[in-house]
C-alpha cells in the first residue's frame, strides 16, 4: 500500500475529492496546513509597516491506497488540483507496510 500526501490549494479540495471518488476512492483524511515555497504570501499592514506573511494556507490530503491504485490516484489528484499557476502543490508517495480498520480489525487492502 501507498500513502499519497497531496498539498493543494484550499479551493481545489472539492474537485480533488470528486476526482478520487470517480476512481472509487472515498476514504481520506484532510488537514489544514501552512505552505512555504515559491509562491509568496500576502502583505499585511500593521501600524503603517508592511510585512510579508510568507506562508500560504494549503490543504493536505492523506489517502492510503492499494499499490495498484497508486498511479491512477496520483494522476487524478494532479489533474484535479492543477491550475497551472505557481503554488499548485505536490503529491508525495510514501510506502505503507500495514493498514488496520479499527472497527473490524481487517488488515491490508481490505482495511482501506
Amino acid at each position, binding site marked *: 500500500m501507498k500513502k499519497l500526501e497531496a498539498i493543494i490549494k484550499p*479551493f481545489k479540495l*472539492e474537485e480533488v475529492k470528486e476526482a478520487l471518488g470517480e476512481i472509487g476512492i472515498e476514504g481520506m483524511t484532510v488537514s489544514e496546513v501552512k505552505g512555504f515555497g515559491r509562491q509568496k504570501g*500576502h*502583505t*499585511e*499592514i*500593521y501600524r503603517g509597516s*508592511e510585512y510579508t*506573511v510568507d506562508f500560504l494556507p494549503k490543504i493536505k490530503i492523506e489517502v492510503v491506497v492499494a499499490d495498484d491504485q497508486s498511479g491512477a490516484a496520483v494522476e487524478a489528484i494532479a489533474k484535479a488540483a492543477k491550475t497551472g499557476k505557481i503554488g499548485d502543490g505536490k503529491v508525495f508517495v510514501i510506502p505503507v507496510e500495514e493498514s488496520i480498520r479499527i472497527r473490524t480489525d481487517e488488515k491490508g487492502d481490505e482495511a482501506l
Partner: protein
Amino acid sequence: MKRSLWKYLLMAALFAAPLASYGQDSATAEEEAAVEIAEAAEAAELGEATEGEGGDGGGASDINSGDTAWMIVATALVLFMTLPGLALFYGGLVRSKNVLSVLVQCFAICGIMSLLWVIYGYALAAGGDGCNFMGWDSSFLFLNHLTVEGASGTIPESVFVTFQMTFAIITPALIVGAFAERMKFKAILLFTTIWFTLSYCPIWHMAWGGFLFGDLPGLPDVLDFAGGTVVHVNAGIAGLVACIMVGKRRGFPKTLIMPHNVPMVLIGASMLWVGWFGFNAGSELAADGVAGMAMLVTQIATATAAVTWMFVEWRSTGTPTAVGIATGAVAGLVAITPASGVAGPMGAILIGFASGLVCYFSATTMKRKFGYDDSLDVFGVHGVGGVVGAVLTGVVAYKSFGGSGAAGLEEEVGMISQVMAQIASVVITVIWSGVVSFVSLKVIDSVVGLRADDQIEEQGLDSNEFGETAYN
C-alpha cells in the same frame, strides 16, 4: 486614469459645493443669528411632523431634561446598532476571509455618513427651502446654524441632528450585506455616498420632512413612525438592485457558504434588538407614553417574529437554528418600525407573526427560486419586512386592531385609504431607490468597476483590500 477620475469625483461631491456655500455663509454669519433661531424652530416642526404634535419650538426654555436625557441615550443606542451591532451581525455571517471587509465597510460608512450629514445631508433632508422631493437650507450646511440653546421641540436641536445622523449611518450600512464578500471597497464608498445623497435624504424629506408623504393627492398622511420606508424599504431595494448588478459570489449557490462565526451573528442580532429601542421609542423624540408603548410593541413584535421563525423552521427543516431565530428577530424589528408609534400589543403580535412568516419565505424559498445572491438577506429581511410593516401600519393603527390611538386622526380616515397611502409610499420608495441605485451603480461600474478581481475574491477581501487577516 480610472483611479484618478474617481478621486476627483469623490472630492467634488464631498467638499466642493458645500465648501463654497460655507464660505458664503460665514461671511454673513452675524446677520443670520436671528434667522437661525427661527430655522431651529422650523426644524423642530419638521422633526415632529409625522408624530402629529405641533411644538411652538425654538427657545431654550422649552428644553425638557427628561426628553433630552432619553434622546441622548436613544442616539447612543442607534449608533450602537451599527457599531458594533450590525457590523457583528454581518461579520459573523460571512466567511472568515471576508469578516474584516464587512467591519471596515461599516466603520467607514459610519465615518463618512456622519460627515456628509453634517456637511449637506441635514440641509437636503430637513431644510424647508426645497420642493416636495428634496429639501434645502443653505444655513444648515456644516450645521452652521446650530447653537447650544437652539431647540427642536423639547430637546436641543444638536440632539435631534445627532439622533438623525445615526439613522443616516445605519441605512447605507444595511445595504452592504447584499453585496458582501465581493464588491470593491472603493465602489462601495462611492455608491453609498451617492445613494445617501440622492435616495436617503430625499425619502427622509418626503416622509419626515412632512412633504410628499404628507401631500399625496387624495390620500391621508402616510404613517411611518420610525423608518419603514425611509430606512428599510429604501435600503432593501438598494440591496436587491446592487446584489443583482454586482453579481453572485463565486460558487453561489453551488458551494456551501456558511457563516464563519454564528455566536458573532447572535451577539450582533442581540445588539440590534436592544439598540432598536432607541430607534423606535426614540423616534417619539420624547420620554412619554408613546415612547413607552413604542418600546413595548417593539419587544412584542420582535419576540413574536423570532418565535414564529423558529417554529416554522423547526417544522419545515426538522431543527430550529441559531441564525434563523436571530434573523426572525430582525424581521420583527424591521416590520414593527413604521408602526411602533401607533400599534398596541395585539397589533404587534400581528405584525411580528406576519413578518416572521413572510420573511422566512422571502429569505429562503423566494431567494432560491429567483437565484439572486442577496448574501445577508438585506432585501429578504429589510426590504420585504419593511413592506410588510409599512402596509400593516395602516391596519394596526386602528383601535379596532389594538392601535394605541397615538396616530391621532385615524378614526376619521378609512382603513382602506390609509392602507392605500401606505402602499403608495412603499411604491414611491421602491421606484426612487431602485432608480437611484441602478443609475449610480452603472456609472460607478464604468468608472472604477463594481467587483473585486476573481483572484481577490477567492483569497478573501481581507488580505487583499485591507492588508490584514482577522484571526492570527
